[in-house]
């Protein structure tokens, strides 16, 4: 089956839906379709708890866009492209107000303005929030507005490939999950908004099961480079047993991190900002405490305590209700009574599809949000900047796409491309195959967690690269046991695993390559930042043989020049 649209958006999280809204608003004559492997309100935007940064000045009257830019650039360890950061922070107040105007329920100050709370790595309190469900409410608001505008959704469609002819976008090939039919969407403009890929750390990740980097993998195979893939953010406060997230807002509201001696150890690592240091620094400090034997011990591994008790029952119930619920569900701990057991968990992928102000190397293809690397987060993202990223660049891509689409033409997707996709899917059911999905996926999570984690060193990184290579080899013999065509989740698991393995290789290879420590990427054998050799973006491309080759790209500088980063 073939569909034809002017603009096809892949992914129905905050970035994809804002792009869709903006496209139909900018040019009501363009036809827009949003394709998503989950129903829109299931998207991982819903899991963003803490908030969205914007220099509204409701709390700190003297906050400015410039200060937000500075915090973001410093937070990125100077790897962010400053023109993109200028745009991100400059647009922040108006996109946040726009979402508010459209019904997003923000928490309020006594004067009725949007409430703002402190967040990690910032000099002013500028994180706008709705209790601890900010992402959830923004996602639902955008979904509601898409319903209002009559946006066309194709729910539960899985992206198989991105198609182009000599660098001109032709559309995408997808799998209709309900029927397993291959359906093509011919479109001169495609916006990829497929979310992050930190689920490759599997049990050591806060991510949803589907954060498997489908858009990144499709872009990589279509020839678009991936940028800065070595930078994976480990969030300091994942729940001990499940890796599920406890928002930075918990520390923003005044929570303490304690080791088993009852010490607020952050005083030794970030004397000024304490628990509100940037995420890379806090996560590393916690890991160091655990390695040095200062953590708490349990059957479910070593951990650090996040103590909220001194905030009082009322503040916890009002400002952190979800956190209380999660702690009770998954750790059996009520934070009003007891500290929460936490440890760092893989959380966010700073790297992704190489994009310049959302445009990629294929004409007509845009990438926004966590799947993209614009790059506004550089080597480390600040809390509250990811929701902002999807809103600002989702909106921009939607606008530009609506203007560009009428100028471009897609000829179509070639029958051989469709045949290749169908053959690949059929081949998984081949009786000679025997490798099991669950086992390869488990080993991938372990290989990444053990070797490409918070602390990295050449020897382990080489092991990681070798193990991922070996797993990709085994994947060639993976067996699809469910051969039905109705809602075949076994098939989706295999397709997602293939994407994660390709991206894991990119992460491991670039982590091995970068011989310095910057932001989230910490090399025990190269503990210093080395601007002379490594102040540059890394690029990954994949040949038709499936091998990764590396390149690099200059960082766009601006007002702020390189400085030592301390908090």
């Amino acid at each position, binding site marked *: 089956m073939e569909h034809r649209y002017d603009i096809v958006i892949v992914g129905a999280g905050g970035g994809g839906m804002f792009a869709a809204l903006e496209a139909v608003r900018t040019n009501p004559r363009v036809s827009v379709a949003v394709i998503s492997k989950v*129903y829109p309100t299931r998207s991982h935007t819903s899991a963003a708890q803490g908030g969205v940064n914007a220099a509204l000045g409701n709390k700190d009257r003297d906050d400015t866009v410039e200060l937000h830019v500075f915090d973001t650039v410093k937070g990125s360890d100077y790897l962010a492209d400053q023109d993109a950061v200028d745009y991100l922070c400059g647009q922040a107040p*108006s996109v946040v107000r726009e979402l508010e105007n459209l*019904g997003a*329920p923000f928490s309020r100050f006594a004067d009725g303005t949007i409430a703002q709370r402190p967040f990690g790595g910032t000099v002013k309190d500028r994180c706008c929030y709705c209790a601890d469900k900010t992402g959830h409410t923004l996602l639902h608001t955008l979904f509601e507005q898409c*319903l209002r505008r009559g946006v066309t959704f194709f729910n539960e469609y899985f992206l198989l490939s991105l198609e182009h002819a000599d660098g001109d976008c032709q559309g995408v090939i997808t799998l209709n999950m309900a029927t397993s039919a291959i359906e093509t969407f011919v479109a001169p403009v495609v916006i990829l908004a497929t979310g992050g890929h930190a689920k490759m750390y599997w049990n050591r990740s806060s991510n949803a*099961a*589907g954060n498997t980097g489908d858009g990144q993998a499709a872009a990589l195979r279509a020839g678009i480079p991936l940028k800065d893939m070595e930078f994976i953010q480990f969030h300091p406060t994942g729940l001990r047993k499940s890796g599920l997230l406890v928002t930075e807002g918990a520390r923003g509201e005044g929570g303490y991190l304690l080791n088993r001696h009852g010490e607020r150890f952050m005083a030794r690592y970030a004397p000024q900002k304490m628990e509100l240091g940037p995420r890379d620094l806090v996560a590393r400090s916690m890991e160091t405490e655990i390695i040095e034997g200062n953590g708490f011990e349990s059957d479910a591994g070593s951990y650090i305590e996040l103590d909220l008790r001194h905030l009082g029952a009322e503040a916890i119930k009002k400002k952190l209700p979800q956190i209380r619920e999660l702690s009770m569900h998954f750790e059996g701990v009520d934070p009003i009574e007891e500290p929460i057991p936490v440890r760092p968990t893989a959380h966010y992928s700073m790297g992704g599809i190489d994009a310049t102000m959302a445009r990629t190397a294929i004409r007509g293809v845009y990438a926004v949000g966590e799947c993209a690397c614009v790059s506004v987060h550089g080597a480390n993202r600040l809390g509250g900047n990811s929701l902002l990223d999807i809103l600002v660049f989702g909106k921009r891509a939607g606008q530009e796409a609506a203007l560009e689409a009428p100028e471009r033409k897609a000829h179509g997707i070639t029958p051989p491309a469709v045949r290749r996709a169908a053959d690949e899917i059929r081949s998984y059911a081949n009786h000679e195959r025997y490798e099991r999905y669950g086992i390869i996926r488990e080993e991938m999570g372990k290989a990444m967690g053990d070797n490409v984690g918070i602390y990295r060193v050449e020897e382990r990184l080489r092991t990681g690269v070798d193990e991922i290579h070996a797993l990709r080899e085994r994947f060639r013999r993976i067996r699809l046991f469910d051969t039905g065509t109705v809602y075949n989740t076994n098939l989706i698991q295999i397709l997602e695993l293939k994407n994660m393995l390709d991206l894991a290789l990119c992460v491991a290879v670039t982590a091995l390559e970068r011989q310095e420590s910057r932001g989230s990427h910490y090399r025990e054998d190269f503990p210093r930042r080395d601007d002379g050799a490594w102040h540059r973006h890394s690029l990954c491309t994949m040949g038709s043989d499936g091998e990764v080759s590396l390149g690099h790209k200059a960082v766009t500088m601006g007002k702020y020049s390189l400085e030592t980063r301390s908090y």
Partner: protein
Amino acid sequence: MERREVSFRIQRYNPQVDRAPFYDNFRIAVEKGITILRALNYIKEHLEPRLTFRAFCQAGICGSCAIRINGVSRLACTTQVWDVLTGGGDDPILIEPLDNLEVIRDLVVDIDPIMEKLKRNQSWVKPAIPEEELGRKEHIVSDEQFETINAASDCILCGSCYSECSMMQVNRDYISPPVLLKAFRMNNDTRDTLGCQRLREVTTDNGLWDCAHCYKCMEHCTKKIPIMDGIHHLREEAFARGMTHTEGARHAQAFFDDIRDIGRLKEVTLPLRTKGVLGSLGMVPLAIKMGLKGRKPPLLVKRIPDIERVRDIYDRLEADRGGEVVGAIHELPLRSAPRSGGCL
């Protein structure tokens, strides 16, 4: 770590091969603290790769994994195996798809009807601000106004209330609890301008007045939202806005009047007061059928002896108008913003 063998009795159905749903049993060793979702994942990865269910965030916020566990709609990812063991842990845990929705395969149901109803009932805010001025300045919203819609905006559209709803059991066209909750949330948002229009849509046939007050939506809400409070407030709003001419409103008014006046219902004239003369004619065949089966409403209904005590209840409720719904079982009862004025 405590560990035990647990049986799962799971409803299976693949329309391609099965003529009807059937049950499959799986017995696995489970650790204490494991969720139903982890158990389902284990079964899929180790025993039956064809077992089909939805799951995404694993943290109770995306709403994908709602299913029925021992007959009750819940999220698989936030339900612990230990909490649903019965018979000293020897009974199998019954796992079934959500009710009131078509099964696509095994535990996966088609949720498009919910999306369609959200759309039909204008489940969105339409602000007064013109399009070109969006993003220029904030609305000023008091903390109290925010709190009015705060609990209702917790809804994750998991479908549990839709599955539990008694009215949905008999009428798939019924508007359904999550859509009514959205209507409450939007109509109490001070930034919205669609109140009257939305309420008019919500009070049409199969709408607001069809709710049977069974409270199951609220009892089983996975986010503990007092949905029924929202439904009550919408009904009050319909009256406050003068939308008293629909059958549902007239029916409610007739109940209200009878109980106040004589302490019991005058069933004989109820159809006349609800449906009017012409509408009641349509009820005649039903009345004859009921009569033949011996179901005859009493023609003369006498006032109850202690009618003053009933009136006292009315007075007290009148004095407390706009306050919390009496008997709310949740920590955060839904309050309604005071509404006045009719709709053009």
